[in-house]
């Protein structure tokens, strides 16, 4: 029992980060905090993929004398792509927040809502 919990500690970290990020996205009214939450949420998925690629007692996937077990490099390559996607999403999200701040003068969700309704 203890072994399962400690042995899978990376997955526990993934779950913790995932829930923390997801909660922040849903719960926070500040547009920048939402983006930060989204980032944490996405990062947890990166960790999940990297954990999947690990092979017990495997080394770096470089062919060399004396090593026969290698970690699976494919998930790591996939996650490089996903990191690029995550960075672009963050950049675009923050750019939108800058434009929203210029147009509304605030980045709080409820204040923006009030300004739209008062028109």
């Amino acid at each position, binding site marked *: 029992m203890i072994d399962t919990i400690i042995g899978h500690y990376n997955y526990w970290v993934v779950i913790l980060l995932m829930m923390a990020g997801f909660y922040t996205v849903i719960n926070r009214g500040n547009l920048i905090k939402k983006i930060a939450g989204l980032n944490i949420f996405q990062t947890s998925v990166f960790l999940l993929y990297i954990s*999947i690629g690990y092979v017990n007692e495997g080394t770096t996937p470089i062919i060399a004398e004396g090593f026969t077990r290698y970690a699976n490099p494919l998930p790591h390559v*996939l996650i490089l*792509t996903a990191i690029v996607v995550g960075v*672009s*999403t963050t950049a*675009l999200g923050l750019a*939108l927040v800058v434009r*929203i701040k210029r*147009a509304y003068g605030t980045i709080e969700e409820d204040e923006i809502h009030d300004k*739209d309704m008062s028109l």
Partner: protein
Amino acid sequence: MIEQNLCLLLVVIPLIAAPVTAMLPAGRTPWFFTLTITWLCFVLSIWQLTIVLDGSTISYELGGWAPPWGIEYHIDALNAFVTLIVSGIAAITLPYALRTVENEIQRRDTSLFYAVFLLCFVGLLGIAQTGDVFNLFVFLEISSLSSYVLIGMGQRRRALTAAYQYLIMGSIGATFLLIGIGLIYAETGTLNMQDLHQRLQPILDHRTVHTGFIFLVVGIALKLALFPLHLWLPNAYKYAPSAISVFLSATATKVAVYVMLRIVFTVFSIDFLKITSTEFIFLMLGAFGVLVASTGAIFHYDIKRILAYSSIAQVSYMVLGMGFASTLGVTATVVHMFNHALMKGALFMAAGAIVLRIGSSKFENIYGIGRQMPWTFAAIFIAGLSLIGIPGTAGFISKWYFMLAALEQQAWLIALVILFGSLLSVVYMWKIFEALFFHRPTNTSPPVSEAPLSLLLPMWTLVLANIYFGINTDLTVSVAETAVRLLGITAYHE
């Protein structure tokens, strides 16, 4: 030479064209270049469809790496059909875009606007073409990120908040998809759809597979605006530039429906759907989506917003068709993907024409406009009849197949929901007809002229297509039947 590389060219040509467009001088040059590219892709997609129409498939190995190690483009009738819808709508939207974009987008932004449009186009084409689930995720993000930008380019400041909201919801959906792909990769060690299907069959009872399936379905449901995950859609379509409302409403959700079909039936299988009772969930969410979204449409006083709510309802019909998990049901879904692109494209084009002349799509500003813009009003009227499902229009064919599928399984309640949904669409379309034609014009506004020809021609092409495909159903139904057979779906037996 071209024929062998056809399926890759469809993705590579617009991908290379996008950065080129961004470097062209602002004005009409980028528009003309984009127009050429979309028409070229349209021709290629027709060619591709004629190759796979007989039920054969094309397998293309990217970079010469044999599947399942390399990325494979696996084209069958369904892929080719969705590609045809996307490129056809893009080709018809571009002539329409010229005037509306000049009206709504600043001149210095036009090169970038058309570059981002091409990126969105390439994303949607890529989703339809690829046979690799991770590749699909990447294309999904290309199309999503570019559509956030396009929506954010709307004139009103609320376009920004609509784009932001869509970005948050869309990114959550995409991340869910990524988690799902990761979990099924951990179980099978492959990303190729055909190979995944083979390897998943023996382990369909594993809990990881089930969890992965749930993440995939919820992620895609966010993208296709399935009730109750539809809240991002009305604002996004309402505040987007007119040409983008047309393009996205006619293609984006349809492509998401395609992804759902692919993941559920090709990657998993129809047996898995039945073991997990997902078909029941699809039926329920589809039925509630039809009722809630159609009722929602009735309580709005803005053409574009009513049409956006109607889009949610129509997508719910497609999910309903998948829920029947029978040949007839999924055929109805595939046929409706095509027909809905025709009718919603025409309707949003007409709404955009009114926005061009009046500057608003709110009822209070457009009372009686239908008499001053008779051709635009006639287009709304005919496309509206198609949306309702009057015989002689394309909408009738889809509704007919949905009813057949429901009656075949003696799902009386669902059949009633389909009929009632049509009734609700009569109500909200009638509200539009009444406001545009029968209501007394507000005296303050000066009379306006008919929409320019560059808007009327694409609009009426789609309207006439609505009538043509309502009478001649050979193409749509035969393609849909071939596609459904290749998805491994069988007829319903008691």
